[in-house]
């Protein structure tokens, strides 16, 4: 065995990577015979559908930047109708509550990096939709996509929350039986 090979053999530990966050919880679900959803995959799909829709609208980046700097050029969902105002209020409150809960359960941010990135992306998408709504007030498709965007964010948070709660339950079970 030459120096090169020896070097690798001796430093094996340095080559080891960690699986993605919450893998232990996914494994626990598998142990219990539950089919495991990979959260980021469906959310990515939802986000992709919305993104495709936005592309279809032919949004021009310069127009968007110009619009965004002028607050009147973005239209909120709540401005569409009283009914929609209720919908927006519902989602924003639920999302906020879930975010607070997640923060209180997980002191450490690392488990939420994937989640944060997705929420950020969806948040940016939402702003684009608001811009487009201002240009096309009342457009049903835009409204639908806005609601879908909210729904996706909330679902992501709720799933993340339930995962954390299950995991913590599991940890205490394991500690008791150890």
């Amino acid at each position: 065995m030459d120096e090169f090979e020896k070097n690798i053999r001796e430093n094996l530990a340095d080559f080891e990577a960690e699986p993605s966050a919450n893998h232990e919880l996914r494994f626990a679900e598998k142990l219990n015979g539950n089919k495991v959803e990979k959260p980021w995959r469906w959310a990515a799909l939802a986000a992709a559908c919305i993104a495709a829709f936005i592309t279809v609208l032919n949004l021009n980046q310069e127009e968007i930047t110009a619009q965004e700097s002028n607050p009147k050029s973005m239209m909120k969902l709540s401005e569409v109708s009283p009914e929609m105002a209720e919908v927006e209020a519902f989602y924003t409150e639920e999302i906020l509550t879930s975010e607070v809960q997640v923060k209180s359960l997980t002191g450490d941010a690392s488990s939420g990096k994937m989640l944060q990135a997705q929420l950020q992306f969806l948040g940016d998408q939402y702003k684009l939709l608001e811009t487009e709504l201002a240009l096309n007030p009342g457009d049903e498709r835009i409204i639908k996509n806005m609601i879908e965007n909210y729904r996706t964010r909330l679902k992501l948070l709720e799933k993340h929350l339930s995962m954390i709660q299950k995991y913590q339950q599991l940890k205490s079970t394991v500690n008791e039986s150890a």
Partner: protein
Amino acid sequence: MEQNNNVLDMHLELLKRCRKGDRGAQMQVYHRYYKAMYNTALRIVKDTFEAEDLMQESFLTAFDQLENLLDLNTFSSWLKRIVVNKSVNALKQRTSYESMLNRAEFDEPMGENEYEIPFTVEQVKTAMNKLPDGYRIVLSLYLFEGYDHEEIAQILSISSGTSRSQYNRGRNQLKQLLMS
């Protein structure tokens, strides 16, 4: 020495409980071995999600088959073998292994003076991922998992001679990648 025996006994106790379907014990065993097994799978399939799946499926299989394991002391090497087999099979489903056995593209013999090649872990990892599948798997099994060519031959259903030559070519190509 006393302490070592106690640790080994505890480990055996844990495995016995796993046999009985004790979830808590199974999670503890998972926690102990997941990282090594994950990396074994990752080095073969290269995809992080797939590697996690394969690693976890391997644990499930192992717990399922645990009653057939006669010597619990061999658990970790047995588990690793399951991981390797599943990973290689997964890769085979994507591409036939024959096409992975590489033609000798970079078959220049290394010179007598092999300088010590300074490299970082990241560089080696990157270079490994650039290797064709066949070389990468044999290199991985030999250098990282510590199998010998006879064992690799069994795992990949090739001859040990083929394993040796794939290894040598793979190692040479790896070095060339690192030196460039």
